[in-house]
């Protein structure tokens, strides 16, 4: 039995789907969101137990393949130097994200014109600016106004605590005369809209038990549900269906018991992230769309961008209290963000300063690096490692390349028998040159901050957490999947609003932009309701 038809069907309740649902909820439309995951219970997040670090390696791992929860789908990323990290629940990957929340720069929308690489976006920074502002308000962004790396912007909450780690590194940046600024962070640094203030628990990336981190199950979703949006959980969409005119008319999905259900809708909006969205479109092949839905350009799944990451860590003589404070939110530097041809690569990168390692991670890292012996010398060595590390991840811009892509794996299936994605990805020469430059500068600033030795991992294998480009935006239907307001060129009532539609990646964490784009597309839909399918 099909369910009652709805006006708008959103697929995916993560960062983008939540923002879309909230924005559309002020219309009189009937809105339904189908989400394969469930509501999470923050009271059971790992930071409420002593074994929180171990839980982060198992049931709350960043990798869906390691977690293997029934809500997850496996991803074949075995051939990629960068592996996928995500989460599948109400809130999507924001359940685990670090909440580092910068915007793109104005130059990021004009990459081709300014630097002759990648492509220009069909929209620009001023177009997104009001939606960034709305998103900062809804998510509760903390930060400090006046960052000279950005056009002026308002930030609703004061910055996160820099702590000893931040102050130590800030002095290092100052010694070199390099840019740094307290991070824009989607973390309530004061009580905000029903969320309790951050109490510096540390492990944000296993879920925030305090509820201070802005995951969308705590921000957009309660407001959207209050306004009448229906959120149907444990509903995994197998395919989007089309009518004889080639318009989307709903979806087939599996419920929690594995029963196939049918849902009809006038408008379908896909928000399954940069891997889940191309998977769904490719799995929705039909007679009218034999190569996958909305894929006449052949670009669905292609131009996958990750942000190649490096991690550089310094060892210090003094304790740094690095177990306190949000893991990934402290300060950032954009000294090397904009292109400088003298560096031998196009585009640039950001430094995102990290807090120190936990007690267990200190031991396990020491064991694998050989720095921590067992036996009589164990405690001496441990004392020199524990709470003596500070460092950074470096977020490099990834340029779009068609050979980097998401395809459907010929064998891998999820628990409902739906074909799963496989990742084909390699690092470009530009990325490799940028990573080398970035690691050398990372070591330099750590030494300037007082580190007596440094180590680097480049690229960082689990850093496939920013998923972009696989259904890119553009004006030309031959060269893009969605138009300049998020509607698929090939299917006039099908929209995409996650990182898939990024044209280029910039060199900052994408979620603020993903959500600003989603709010912008929602606004375009509302403005065009009377001529939406023209």
């Amino acid at each position, binding site marked *: 039995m099909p369910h009652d038809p709805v006006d708008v069907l959103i697929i995916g309740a993560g960062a983008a789907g939540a923002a879309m649902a909230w924005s559309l909820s002020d219309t009189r439309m009937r809105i339904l969101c189908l989400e394969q995951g469930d509501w999470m219970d923050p009271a059971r997040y790992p*930071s409420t137990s002593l074994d929180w670090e171990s839980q982060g390696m198992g049931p709350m791992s960043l990798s869906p393949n390691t977690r293997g929860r029934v809500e997850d789908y496996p991803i074949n990323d075995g051939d990629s130097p960068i592996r996928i990290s995500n989460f599948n629940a109400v809130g999507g990957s924001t359940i685990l994200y670090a909440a580092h929340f910068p915007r793109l720069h104005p130059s990021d929308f004009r990459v081709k014109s300014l630097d002759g690489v990648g492509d220009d976006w069909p929209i620009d920074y001023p177009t997104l600016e009001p939606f960034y502002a709305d998103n900062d308000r809804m998510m509760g962004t903390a930060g400090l106004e006046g960052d*000279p790396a950005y056009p002026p912007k308002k930030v609703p909450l004061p910055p996160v605590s820099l702590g000893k780690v931040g102050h130590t590194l*800030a002095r290092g*940046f100052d010694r070199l005369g390099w840019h740094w600024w307290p991070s824009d962070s989607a973390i309530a640094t004061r009580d905000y809209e029903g969320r309790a203030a951050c*109490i510096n628990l540390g492990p944000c990336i296993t879920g925030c038990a305090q509820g201070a981190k802005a995951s969308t199950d705590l921000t957009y979703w309660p407001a959207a549900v209050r306004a009448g949006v229906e959120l149907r959980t444990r509903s995994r969409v197998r395919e989007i269906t089309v009518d004889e005119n080639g318009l989307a008319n709903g979806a087939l999905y599996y419920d929690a018991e594995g029963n196939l259900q049918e849902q009809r809708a006038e408008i379908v909006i896909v928000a399954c992230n940069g891997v889940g969205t191309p998977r769904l479109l490719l799995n929705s092949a039909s007679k009218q769309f034999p190569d996958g839905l909305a894929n006449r350009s052949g670009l669905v799944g292609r131009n996958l961008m990750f942000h190649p990451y490096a991690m550089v860590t310094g060892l210090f003589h003094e304790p740094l*209290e690095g177990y306190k404070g949000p893991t990934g939110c402290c300060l950032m530097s954009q000294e090397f963000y904009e292109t400088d041809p003298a560096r031998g690569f196009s585009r640039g990168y950001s430094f995102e300063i990290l807090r120190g390692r936990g*007690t267990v991670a200190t031991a396990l890292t020491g064991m694998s690096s050989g720095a921590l012996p067992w*036996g*009589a010398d164990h*405690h001496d060595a441990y004392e020199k490692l524990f709470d003596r590390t500070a460092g950074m991840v470096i977020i490099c811009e990834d340029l779009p390349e068609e050979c980097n892509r998401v395809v459907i794996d010929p064998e891998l299936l999820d628990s409902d028998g739906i074909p799963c994605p496989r990742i084909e990805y390699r690092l470009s020469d530009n990325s490799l040159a940028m990573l080398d430059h970035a690691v050398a500068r990372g070591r330099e600033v750590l030494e300037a901050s007082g580190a007596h030795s440094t180590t680097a991992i480049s690229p960082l294998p689990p850093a496939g957490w920013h998923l972009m480009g696989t259904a890119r935006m553009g004006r030309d239907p031959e060269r893009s999947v969605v138009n300049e307001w998020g509607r698929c060129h090939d299917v006039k009532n099908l929209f995409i609003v996650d990182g898939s539609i990024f044209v280029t990646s910039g060199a900052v964490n994408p979620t603020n932009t993903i959500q600003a784009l989603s709010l912008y597309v929602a606004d375009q839909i509302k403005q065009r309701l009377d001529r939406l399918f023209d």
Partner: protein
Amino acid sequence: MPDQAEQEALLEAVLDTLIPPCEERGMPGAGALGLAGELPRDELGPVIDPGLQALGADFASSSLEARQARLEALSGEQPAFVPALLFHLYRCYYAQPAVLEALGMPGRPPHPEGYAMEENDLGLLAAVRARGRQYRDA
């Protein structure tokens, strides 16, 4: 074949050799903390049981130096024995309240109490502010 009590005493002695007590720092030994009971024995059994047998019952009564030498020698023959144990042992040991306290941290999970942090010194930004605008027009 040692009986179960001997086997437990042996494993406890191995753990106390891998992470021995350190009185000066107040760090307990891993065996004396009772962590043998917290290790995933089913998973570890095939890797460590042959090694435990090879060590023999007198291992437990030897000095730390002698035990360390025996484990080092065993590692030559059974290279997976120590790393397999350490991987699980570190995860248990470094999550014990007594250990956290000896390291100068509160012996509790991060939530619900959290941690207090020092005030931000935003005066450090003076040099950055003085450099002025840093983004490109587009």
